[in-house]
């Protein structure tokens, strides 16, 4: 990154102590493993939970990146930036209550998501929307973890290295967003 002097390096999964120590506006470089899920996967996970089923992957302590990546024919990611988070707001409190430590997306969240973040000592991290190429390059490995039939919307396990994000909402509910 061109302006990396202020970045805090964070290993995934994010520990409860690390989550509590971070403040809205902190810039992070994430390295390690996380899951992807966006609209269709959230809807399906939520419906599974409502019907008394289990999540397709263990999400306790994990981070969920709201992304629908694109791939070259050889499987290399060609674009992997964040999608708009508010569409996941209906599902996010339930997933935070299931132990999700951080979600990663773009844009502000609903009051219910703020409450869930505070209640669970969790985080909402913002990736830079529109920076699809840089986030693709931060991915070092990718595999489908669940819902393969959803294509780009499948749940994937990603390994990332130095993925740049900024803390959007910290565990106390402080936010980078105005208003």
């Amino acid at each position: 990154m061109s302006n990396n002097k202020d970045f805090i390096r964070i290993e995934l999964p994010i520990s409860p102590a690390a989550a509590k120590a971070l403040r809205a506006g902190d810039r992070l470089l994430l390295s390690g493993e996380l899951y992807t899920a966006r609209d269709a996967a959230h809807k399906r996970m939520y419906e599974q939970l409502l019907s008394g089923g289990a999540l397709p992957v263990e999400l306790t302590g994990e981070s969920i990146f709201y992304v629908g990546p694109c791939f070259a024919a050889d499987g290399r990611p060609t674009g992997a930036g964040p999608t708009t988070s508010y569409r996941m707001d209906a599902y996010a409190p339930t997933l935070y209550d299931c132990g999700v430590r951080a979600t990663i997306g773009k844009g502000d969240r609903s009051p219910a998501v703020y409450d869930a973040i505070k209640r669970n000592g969790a985080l909402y991290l913002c990736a830079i929307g529109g920076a699809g190429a840089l986030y693709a390059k931060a991915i070092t490995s990718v595999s489908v973890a669940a819902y393969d039939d959803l294509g780009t919307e499948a749940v994937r396990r990603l390994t990332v290295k130095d993925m740049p994000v900024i803390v959007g909402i910290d565990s106390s509910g402080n936010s980078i967003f105005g208003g």
Partner: protein
Amino acid sequence: MREITATDITEAVRTLVKACGRLTPSGKKALAACLARERSDAARFALSTLLENAETAEREGLALCQDTGMAVFYVALGQDVHITGGLLNDAINEGVRKGYAECGWRASVLDPLTRVNTKDNTPAIVHIELTEGDGLSLDFLPKGFGSENMTRLFMLTPSAGILGVEDSIVEAVRLAGANPCPPVVVGVGIGGTAEKAMETAKRQLLRPVGEPSPDPELAALEQRCLDRINALGIGAQGFGGDTTALAVHCGKFPTHIASLPVAVNVQCNAMRHSHIDL
């Protein structure tokens, strides 16, 4: 009469869709100027990341944004052209099918109700305008839906006047907040019917970023809206900052005595566009 084959159109489209990997020159210039005057630290982080991303995408053949959009085409078709070997829409869709797969762009298009993906990003949205002569030109505007979801239509009444138009444009951007990936370009269509207003709004996104309307009254409206939008303080990515919009582009069309339609269609910071003349 000039003949143009469906195959030629498919090949042209296949080339055009490579534009998902490039920020337009005017978009790049606008983002750089925005960074130069930005005072918010978080917004500067966002803007410098976006400029670095644009260079990386172009250098390495990657997508500028993973939302490579629904493929929108504006076709100007000369009345003296005869298309042979297939239908125009089929030829365009075949170009999208091939081009998106070859570039590794995302298949984002699905049935709205069953949510079953077509897996090849078709169908494209095709606007056809008949023109004089025997030329055929194509403009490709891949439209991401983080910004498309922030579209608004205001069916104002005549009493609202130009101030009502201005207020509606600013309100649409305020309500969109951080969601459409600011800094944005705001496309505005004033007048016509509901769908004409919206078509006009989106068509304004084809203009080079910041190129004022040739109509002095619209150009002045664009500047007033831009000043008010940037006073909102939403900033790049909604992190707070000096620039929420890079430009406001307004177009107009005659409307009915009973109405004053205003359509607002937002372009995110991933400004992509390509053009070809056949």
